[in-house]
């Protein structure tokens, strides 16, 4: 077993060796290096053929038409293109957008920008399990609402929104639905024939493809229009200009093809490991699972270890690579806004660790992690004055703490 153990698959994944092998054939003089937009020679034709194949693989995983796939540089660009693109195109129809407080920053910050441009945005509060209440969503919809943007799987707590039900609601009202699927593609089945989703964002590097590569699904029936954000040579049917990065696209296509072929078996295996980790932590005092346990992607376990601060725990867990909702691990010095939005106290947000498992996680690694976490949490609690107080029966929430920050 190699240390440190990688348990941060929601941050990024290694490129699958099969994907890297395929990508390497689209770079050098001996490979297919042509510009796919070159129509006048065989170099261009070969590259275009590779692009078409990759587009087919991405479309197949989500049961869409290949013509509905627009290549981008990643899910952040896809989210920007979808939200700004729809807002700008349909602004005469209405200027109201609905999203949720637990969305990725690529969605929230894009919405903030639109507010500065004069749009009106409603940020829904999720329930304590991380899911959006459909009644609250319905209540937020207005005659001037043009777009709802909600993520499929949350990057921090792994909860799966019911985008089927959400789509039925928005479609019935003629409102467009954008879904950020960066964390769900290849992990949760997606069928865009049956889901009333109008735009969907994808990333390659979350599912064993290369970084710097993504796609946006833009529905054709009924047709969705977006205003381009990147102007130039009119690539991607005018929606996103820029020479296509053949090797990156081929990599994304191969990653999506593999995900389609292996998702069912992989999910079962990863879920088994995730459950083994959670069962292995049982019996520890004051541990809290963040996010719904059932409507949850297989590889995610987000746990707060009360009375232990997240960054010091990450230091103690240096044999494993995980992330924390603690303020000290973020640039802003604010604890996780996702955990705060689901009603977790600052203390519990500071004490959270996100374990995300994936394709190369082994049983041995999970068992090592369980032992390490149990040992280190116990050690840090011995150091914690809050743990002392908890053990003495003091209610920490009732103490008047001197404001410090």
């Amino acid at each position: 077993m190699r240390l440190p153990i990688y348990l941060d698959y929601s941050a990024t994944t290694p490129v699958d060796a099969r994907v890297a092998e395929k990508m390497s054939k689209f770079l050098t003089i001996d490979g297919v290096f042509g510009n796919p937009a070159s129509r006048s020679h065989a170099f261009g034709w070969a590259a275009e053929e590779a692009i078409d194949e990759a587009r087919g693989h991405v479309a197949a995983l989500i049961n869409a038409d290949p013509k509905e796939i627009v290549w981008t540089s990643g899910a952040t660009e896809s989210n920007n293109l979808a939200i700004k693109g729809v807002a700008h195109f349909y602004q005469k129809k209405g200027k109201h957008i609905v999203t949720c407080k637990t969305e990725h920053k690529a969605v929230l910050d894009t919405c903030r920008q639109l507010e500065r441009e004069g749009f009106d945005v409603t940020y829904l509060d999720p329930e304590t399990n991380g899911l959006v209440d459909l009644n609250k969503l319905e209540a937020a919809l207005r005659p001037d609402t043009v777009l709802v943007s909600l993520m499929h799987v949350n990057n921090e707590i792994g909860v799966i929104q019911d985008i089927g039900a959400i789509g039925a609601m928005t479609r019935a009202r003629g409102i467009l639905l954008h879904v950020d699927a960066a964390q769900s593609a290849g992990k949760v089945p997606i069928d865009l024939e049956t889901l009333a989703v109008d735009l969907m964002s994808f990333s390659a590097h979350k599912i064993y493809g290369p970084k710097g590569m993504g796609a946006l699904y833009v529905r054709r029936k009924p047709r969705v229009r977006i205003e381009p954000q990147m102007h130039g040579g009119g690539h991607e049917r005018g929606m996103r200009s820029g020479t296509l990065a053949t090797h990156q696209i081929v990599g994304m296509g191969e990653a999506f093809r593999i995900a389609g072929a292996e998702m069912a078996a992989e999910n079962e295996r990863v879920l088994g490991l995730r459950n083994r980790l959670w069962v292995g932590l049982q019996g520890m005092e004051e541990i809290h699972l963040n996010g719904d346990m059932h409507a949850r992607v297989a590889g995610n376990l987000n746990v707060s270890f009360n009375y232990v601060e997240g960054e010091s725990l990450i230091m103690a867990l240096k044999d494993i690579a995980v992330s924390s909702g603690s303020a000290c691990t973020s640039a802003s010095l604010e604890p996780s806004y996702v955990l705060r939005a689901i009603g977790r106290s600052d203390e519990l947000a500071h004490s959270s660790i996100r374990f995300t498992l994936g394709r190369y996680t082994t049983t041995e690694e999970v068992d090592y992690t369980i032992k390490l976490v149990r040992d280190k949490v116990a050690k840090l609690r011995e150091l914690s004055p809050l743990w002392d107080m908890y053990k003495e029966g003091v209610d920490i929430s009732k103490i008047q703490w001197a404001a410090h920050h």
Partner: protein
Amino acid sequence: MAYSDKVLDHYENPRNVGSFTKDDPSVGTGMVGAPACGDVMRLQIKVNDQGVIEDARFKTYGCGSAIASSSLLTEWVKGKTLDQAREIKNTDIATELALPPVKIHCSVLAEDAIKAAIDDFKSKQHVDAKKTA
């Protein structure tokens, strides 16, 4: 985050972890910070009849720098008079541990902790003096 070797050493081998009985009149307790901010330090000093800090204990909830700052502080205050201990500045701690700018608040908290512990000890002495009078 790249920590200095000194922070890592104090973090991995914290000195003087523990507690004294709070009610002991020779003990001063300072608890500073707030759980919501991600750090709470509890520093205790044991003071002899000559007003010298004989021993110190701490417990800290917080990041590695907060733990290291309080561990270092317990080493520094031992053998000092209360007035000398009050002179310890957060900048001394930050310099010794080579804390990055984003972690300076940990050293500020440590300075607050020793001041709070001294004040607590003195207020106890005051109450005792009243009782015996």
